[in-house]
């Protein structure tokens, strides 16, 4: 594999992982693959340590909430091969109200706060995380504010009622 293009990466991963990885597409040239939560750590370590792939840099971890889907949460990883400048996006779809996924802190130290942020906002529990606490919100918040059902404003507040504006 001389050139590390999307097709090459995908074929290479298929040889190694077979049906355990799936392809979602390549929106705007960024190859997006999916896997399950059982395989994610193996996949990430392989991407980082393999001599051909060398995705050594973890750019970002975040999550997305799709309340209408059965697998309502997607944890999204962006990794970057700094040697050849190739980016890759990995998605893991998770089921249930309190989804769990293994932590990536064993692979990158930098995953620590990114996972804490994801937990703080979406309630995705990263199993094995050394310090899984809320990071940006206050500690006694009992909801996960980036979930879609959480309203932007407090629905009980009265100071914005039309009544007060003569409507």
């Amino acid at each position, binding site marked *: 594999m001389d050139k590390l293009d999307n097709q090459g990466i995908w074929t290479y991963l298929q040889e190694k992982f077979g049906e355990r990885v799936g392809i979602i597409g390549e929106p705007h040239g960024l190859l997006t693959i999916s896997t399950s939560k059982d395989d994610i750590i193996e996949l990430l370590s392989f991407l980082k340590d393999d001599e051909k792939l060398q995705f050594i840099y973890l750019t*970002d971890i975040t999550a997305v*909430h799709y309340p209408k889907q059965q697998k309502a949460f997607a944890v999204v990883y962006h990794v970057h091969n700094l040697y050849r400048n190739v980016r890759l996006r990995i998605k893991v779809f998770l089921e249930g109200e309190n989804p769990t996924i293994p932590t990536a802190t064993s692979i*990158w*130290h*930098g995953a620590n706060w990114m996972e804490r942020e994801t937990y703080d906002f979406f309630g995705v529990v990263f199993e094995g995380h050394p310090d899984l606490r809320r*990071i940006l*919100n206050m500690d006694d918040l009992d909801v996960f*504010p980036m979930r879609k059902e959480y309203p*932007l404003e407090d629905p009980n507040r009265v100071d914005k009622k039309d009544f007060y504006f003569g409507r």
Partner: protein
Amino acid sequence: MSKSISKITHNNPVFYDNDPQDELITLNIGPTHPATHGVFQNVCQIDGERIVSGVSTIGYIHRAFEKIAEHRPFYQITPLTDRLNYCSSPINNMGWHMTVEKLLNIEIPKRVQYMRVIVMELARIADHIICNGILGVDTGAFSGFLYVMQEREFIYEIFEEICGARLTTNIGRIGGFERDFNEVAFRKIKEFIKRYPPVLEEFEELFVRNRIFIERTSGVAAVTPEQALSYSWSGPILRATGVDYDVRVVDPYCSYEEFDFEVPVGTSGDVYDRFMVRNAEMWQSLRIIGQALEKIEKEPQGIFHADVPEFYLPPKEQVYNNMEALIYHFKIVMGEWETPKSEVYHAVEGANGELGFYLIHDGGRTPYRLHFRRPSFVNYQMFAPMSSGMLISDAIINMSSLNVIAGELDA
């Protein structure tokens, strides 16, 4: 410790169970402390002057930008990005515009790209001026800060000339700029690249070979490239460790590939190297601005936005007199535009590192999900682990040299 107070006399001294000299003291640095330059707290266990361990608490100015962004049309998100890294708002603004343009597949004219490059590099210089100036102040050299601060004021005057605002600029629009740079703006940019080099030289003269400064910073908080990459560092502090990762070079946007500039790197990753890398980047930014001015001369004049009427707000006089423009105006303001379902990750080289925008769009009025990959947030998480074993005064200058901006940290 069980002895009651009444028994304490000269003849009957108190013997503590633990020798007080072994005890650690808990010290809160922050949330509002003059040395933290922003609202964040570090709870440190200290042994004398030395930090044994520390825990960072952040989120004091969290404003839920990602949640708000899910309820706003694209052009209303630009003011939110202003308030991420407010020392270099234009870079954030341009990064956001470019993300949306990537989503909508808008081709931007060359002249507009060069104009953007000028604005972004000016913002980078302004940001580095703050960081290096403050680093000087924290090591006890106040005058350099005042010399360069004047020049930052001049950069803000240029921003004022371009968009009317100084700090939170909201500069540009999706598709280009809201208006062309006027004569005064061009004159001031040209004046800036003439008047700034002597000031920067003087600033460097104050610090680079200054023995006090070198002894305070050299070898302090040195980071290896492996550590830095494992902690996902980016920007000048990563380059100070010797890794030449610069988004402008590896992933060029805004025609950066046409410009001739160097990526300065350090060797030891300590505070001194970070200072030197930022200084060198200011020189490179000046070079880039000079080249961009030359390139603008060669482009057809008067173009300041792409020809995309369905996404770019029409001028007001047309809105009042032209039916088509009125329709577009209404559609854009209400967010009723046709946009593709897609997802985009776009990164720009912010003043602190890789500033990424991860946008998932479902074709509606507002983004389905928008995530900011904020360099300050990612860079800062190494601060507490790397501080253990450090002197408090070293930790303070380490924090200054990381250039953590509270707005970007907390989003």
